[in-house]
């Protein structure tokens, strides 16, 4: 058994890029695998709902050309998690097409495993009816209606389907939605290294050099794992890992840094020790893994909730700003009185007031401070794009010309930076499922397709 295993993480999100020099330093260290994560729910529900990637195709291809060339040249696996960001079928297909394109451009071929993460409405309904789906944190209860309305529902796979694909001889593995650390931990776990340390190392490597100082999401990091600890090292000599930077990273985007739940169990960091190896490297040990029985995976789903149109304008008149709430309320009543056939549930009109509470909404403690100007976003979300366009135009023209007590600037109330002033934003989605689902087997929900792609395929 190998006593040391090295995992190279080139960049925090596939498509964010990385310096060639750092990547070469990483390759010179003879890594056993190159792994990269592409996923996040951070950009919001639109990407999962619509099937679009939040990363750019040109940027993803640029990264993949270098990663595929390096991995195939060195005969080490390349593992790509959560293709296209949200990791549903359209995102996976999008990423696979880019991989095929790269292989052709490189005049190479490779055995590629494609692992999907989509969960069908039928399977979800069956799981829901047999009480195998539970809310994850402070989220609404799941209903059959939410399942039916969701355009895409994915589950986060653990290491098991990736290990299976490697057993089948895959040189490149590209997955749908995947627990971020899984692509980093799969090769070490397959070789018999401790699951807890491999996953904890993956948890940090998935953000590449973000855990270093200065941090960067577009630079490379190396993880070196033994049977009792792992060492993190940024590959750009201008960065270093410190005990604080690594420990602080375990807080990032997590609700509790001591317990990090994932597919099949929870990483327990309460006995964890972080120690400096030298000025640039940190050793981590003591991580435990608490097995969760039954095995549960996280579900993510999004559903369409309408179509949006916005108009952006500024306000500088003190009399308008002084009576802002009353004026906006008056405009709202006027708009809906012009369209008496529109039922309340068909459209939502929101006036966002930047300079007052545009950023924090109800959490803003300084809402009563009167600013000298307001950035106004008029927003309508409605059952059709046409209705959203109509109501937004009505709200914009109403507010532009609305009379109010004490008005001196009678030529117009709004300053528009753009012509046209209104922008149709298309379909709007909301997260519809954020739950845990019990599964009988960690591989079955994630079908693996293996095929030779590229030049000679």
């Amino acid at each position, binding site marked *: 058994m190998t006593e040391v295993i090295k995992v190279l993480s080139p960049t925090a999100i596939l498509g964010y890029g990385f310096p060639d020099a750092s990547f070469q330093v990483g390759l010179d260290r003879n890594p056993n695998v190159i792994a990269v994560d592409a996923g996040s*729910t*951070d*950009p*919001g*529900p*639109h990407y999962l709902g619509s099937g679009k990637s939040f990363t750019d195709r040109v940027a993803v291809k640029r990264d993949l050309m270098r990663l595929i060339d390096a991995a195939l040249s060195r005969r080490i696996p390349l593992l790509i998690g959560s293709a296209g960001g949200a990791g549903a079928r359209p995102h996976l297909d999008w990423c696979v097409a880019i991989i095929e394109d790269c292989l052709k451009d490189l005049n190479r071929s490779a055995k590629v495993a494609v692992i999907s993460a989509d969960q069908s409405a039928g399977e979800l309904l069956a799981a829901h009816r047999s009480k195998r789906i539970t809310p*994850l*944190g*402070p*989220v609404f209860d799941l209903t059959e209606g939410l399942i039916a309305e969701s355009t895409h529902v994915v589950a986060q796979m653990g290491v098991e389907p990736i290990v299976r694909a490697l057993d089948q001889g895959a040189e490149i593995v590209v997955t749908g939605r995947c627990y971020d650390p899984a692509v980093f931990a799969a090769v070490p776990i397959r070789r018999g290294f401790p699951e807890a340390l491999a996953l904890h190392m993956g948890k940090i490597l998935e953000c590449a050099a973000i855990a270093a100082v200065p941090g960067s999401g577009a630079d490379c990091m190396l993880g070196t794992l033994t049977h009792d600890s792992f060492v993190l090292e940024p590959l750009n000599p201008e960065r270093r890992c410190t*005990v*604080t930077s690594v*420990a*602080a990273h*375990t*807080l*990032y*985007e*997590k*609700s*509790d*840094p*001591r317990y990090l739940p994932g597919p099949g169990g929870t990483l327990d960091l309460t006995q*964890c020790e*972080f120690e400096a190896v030298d000025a640039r490297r940190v050793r981590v040990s003591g991580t435990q893994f608490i097995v969760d029985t039954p095995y549960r995976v996280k579900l993510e789903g999004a559903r369409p*909730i309408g179509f949006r149109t916005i108009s952006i304008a500024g306000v500088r008149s003190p009399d308008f700003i002084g009576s802002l709430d009353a004026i906006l309320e008056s405009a709202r009543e006027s708009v809906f009185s012009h369209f008496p056939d529109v039922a309340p549930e068909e459209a*939502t009109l*929101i006036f*966002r007031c930047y300079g007052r509470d*545009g*950023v*924090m*909404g*109800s*959490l803003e*403690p300084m809402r009563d401070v009167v600013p000298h100007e307001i950035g106004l976003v008029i927003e309508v*979300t409605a059952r059709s794009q046409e209705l959203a366009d109509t109501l937004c135009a009505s709200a914009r023209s109403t507010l532009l010309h609305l009379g109010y007590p004490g008005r001196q600037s009678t030529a117009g109330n709004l300053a528009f930076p753009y012509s046209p002033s209104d922008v149709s934003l298309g379909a*709007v*989605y*909301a*997260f519809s499922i*954020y739950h845990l689902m019990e599964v009988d087997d960690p591989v079955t929900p994630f079908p693996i397709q293996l095929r030779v792609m590229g030049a000679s395929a």
Partner: protein
Amino acid sequence: MKLSELASVIRSKNAGPFELTFDVLFSDLETYHRVVNSDCLSAQRFAYLYKISVTDVLSVVHFLPALAIKITIRRSRGSGDLGETDVYGAQQHGPLLDVDIPE
């Protein structure tokens, strides 16, 4: 003294689409203990500061390895839902900056 003068990092971010988490990090053990012991970042104080129910403060964790205090609250709506103001949750930390920490 204001919290912004004592902490090295004060930030907010989504922890999944339905939770918002705040991290306050310090550069030295003494300052970390001073703020922890002041109780100025308790669940009750945080709820008062953000005008939310104390039951919506899901956890307050003191994490010594990172010299950090972490507060996690329920998001007022799922990330990106109608009425969203901050999809990533990255600009909700402002009220923490001016929290007064006694000597």
